[in-house]
């Protein structure tokens, strides 16, 4: 009797698998699609090679003055020579170890919090103490450290200081405003609504003008905020309104049963909010919060209009140096790249966090 052993199935034809099939399916599936592919290739051809030619092939990396840059490419020598300015602004040169050690401390703290398991109490203490440490280090005036006025701070350092202080301080104020807006008490509610809607209706630049010009009038003589403090106050109170709206949208996602359950357990208002409602509301709204913090980070660049020297303002400062005139293209591209790295990684982080926190118990 003939035996017919089962043959393994034939592989699909070469045109229906592997990269060829992928190209046929994704790039050439119809005349329209082919036209689009040609258009896409044309766009890439017009944008990518010229940029690479400018930024890498024709660019100059070696040297220490403008004379090292001849020809059309980018002059990265400029960035290299002015790097300290871009990172720290006018911070005194012999004191640069201070901001550098603060940056190092941030990285060390982050690594410690991420990779060392447990020790939650210690971590929390360190995180709470860190701003004090950073302020003492950067500002000085104690422990033998010479005083460095905030008007000397600049560059990425200033941008990060404004962004982190803004994020940290606007968060609790935002929570309070959101609670106020949810409140059943009519006066508290209307005050919160008024504040939130007012701030969200005006541009940040007007709030910054208000903080830098009008705020000093509000306080008795002798009470002096420096420029940085005024900018921080403006940004914090501006972003708090946006944070409040994010948290409110989180509240709306909490089922009523959660409130009722907390009531049934006999929790008071603050206990109910702090232990039951807020943790869930914040969790739901984390993607929105990160979105707000990303726009806060981008908005820090506005402080240059009220005369602070943040990262963006350093482009004008350095490109107006007599030895380096006409370098603003390199400056802007470099600064845009730094901003982009921060904001893009924040949005990636938010996506990851969203996935991790999705406990899917709705």
């Amino acid at each position, binding site marked *: 009797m003939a035996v017919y052993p089962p043959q393994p199935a034939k592989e699909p034809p070469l045109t229906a698998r592997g990269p060829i099939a992928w190209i046929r399916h994704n790039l050439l599936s119809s005349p329209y699609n082919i036209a689009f592919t040609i258009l896409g290739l044309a766009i890439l051809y017009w944008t990518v090679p010229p940029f690479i030619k400018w930024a890498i092939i024709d660019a100059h990396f070696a040297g220490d003055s403008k004379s090292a840059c001849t020809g059309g490419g980018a002059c990265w020598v400029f960035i290299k020579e002015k790097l300290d300015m871009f990172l720290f602004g006018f911070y005194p040169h012999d004191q640069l170890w201070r901001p550098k050690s603060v940056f190092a401390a941030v990285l060390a703290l982050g690594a410690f919090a991420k990779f060392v398991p447990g020790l939650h109490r210690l971590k929390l203490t360190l995180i709470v103490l860190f701003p004090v440490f950073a302020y003492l280090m950067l500002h000085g005036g104690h422990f033998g450290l010479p005083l460095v006025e905030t008007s000397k701070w600049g560059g990425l350092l200033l941008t990060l200081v404004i962004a982190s202080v803004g994020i940290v301080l606007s968060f609790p104020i935002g929570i309070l405003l959101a609670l106020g807006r949810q409140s059943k008490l009519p006066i508290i509610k209307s005050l919160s609504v008024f504040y939130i809607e007012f701030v969200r209706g005006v541009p940040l630049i007007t709030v910054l003008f208000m903080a830098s010009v009008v705020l000093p*009038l509000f306080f008795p003589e002798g009470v002096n905020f420096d420029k940085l403090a005024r900018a921080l106050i403006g940004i914090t109170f501006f972003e708090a309104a946006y944070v409040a709206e994010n948290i409110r949208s989180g509240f709306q996602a909490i089922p009523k049963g959660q409130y009722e359950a907390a009531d049934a357990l006999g929790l008071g208002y603050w206990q109910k909010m702090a232990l039951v409602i807020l943790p869930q509301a914040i969790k739901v709204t984390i993607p929105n919060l990160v979105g707000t913090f990303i726009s806060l980070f981008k908005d820090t660049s506005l402080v240059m209009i009220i005369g602070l020297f943040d990262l963006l303002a350093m482009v004008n400062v350095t490109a107006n140096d007599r030895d380096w005139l006409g370098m603003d293209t390199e400056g802007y591209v470099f600064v845009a790249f730094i901003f982009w790295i921060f904001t893009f990684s924040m949005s990636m982080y938010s996506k990851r966090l969203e996935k991790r926190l999705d406990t899917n118990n709705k």
Partner: protein
Amino acid sequence: MPAFLRNEKVRGILYQIITIVLFVAFLFYIAQNTSHNIEQRGIKTGFAFLHATAGFDITEAPIPFSPMDTHLKVFEVGLLNTLIVSFWGIVLSSLLGLLIGVWRLSPNWLINRIAAAYIETFRNIPVLLQILFWYNVVLATLPAARHSLSFFDTIFINNRGFFMPEFVFGPGSWMIGAALFLAVVAIYFTNRWAKKRQEETGEQFPVFLTAIILLIGLPLLAYLIAGRPVTAVLPALHGFNFRGGKTFTPEFLALLFALSIYTATFIAEAIRSGIEAVPKGQKEAATSLGLSPMQQLRLVILPQAVRIAIPSIINQYLNLIKNSSLAAAIGYPELVTIFAGTSLNQTGQALEILLITMLTYLLISLIVSLILNWFNTKMKIKER
């Protein structure tokens, strides 16, 4: 705790009284300090400055303006410029956002990736940086007036801006406007008639084609009948600069381009999330009804996607209007630059001027949110 404090209502009232007292005390404290400080520094108060002579000129005024005009006029010019740049910004960012949003949904992998790269790049760079880049790098490095880039000798581009022909409407031009109006009315009635006929007989009528023919044909006909009343004034080089025609300054263009490119990324994302939010079953149902891909999009997908996308797009328009205030960094004479900038420096009345500026933006925001609410109620799913 005394017994009456355990009553929630009593406590609520108590909290509110405390809040009010603290709030009023705070306001009083601020008001007292402010009036004291203002007196000390010899700053004038009140709104009389609005009728004082401004004493400075404005480079780009849509209405006639001279240094002899008042600060109130400065406010008007600033507000008009804000509205002009916002209007064109909204038009341009919508077109660009629609294009990028559609590309982002394209089945073509390459186009899809290019759109994603565009979005991720421009969304993550501060808009102020983009404005400065356009102003200080792109537009400043354009050739001088003598070596302008010229397109068919009608449009000229140089480092002083873009120069385009301006259309002058001569006598009889009203006929073109009337023809346009007539075309719109005709399209409206054709549409109604075609819908009714389709419902009764099932026969379709090429409404879209008719509309295009009417919209182009009728005004063209009127133009010819009225004896070609519209003429174009071409910009021409006189000495060091161009004269005649319509001029767009580098300040305006830098602001417009940066705002449009930035806002377009958010509009593209809104369009994408709107279309992606329509459940897959809707498309499958439409396919099984035998609708063509174009009909599916027009009759099933878009009406549902629009409901989700439009509110966030309108919010982006509002953000664009607010971001136009960043013109202060490059000196395009809009509300914040000239009123909250130059006028403020001249008069020193920061409190009044900033309040007026803020309230103006607040009013614009209010109008936009009224439109948004109107849209939301109109678009609400009508359930039986």
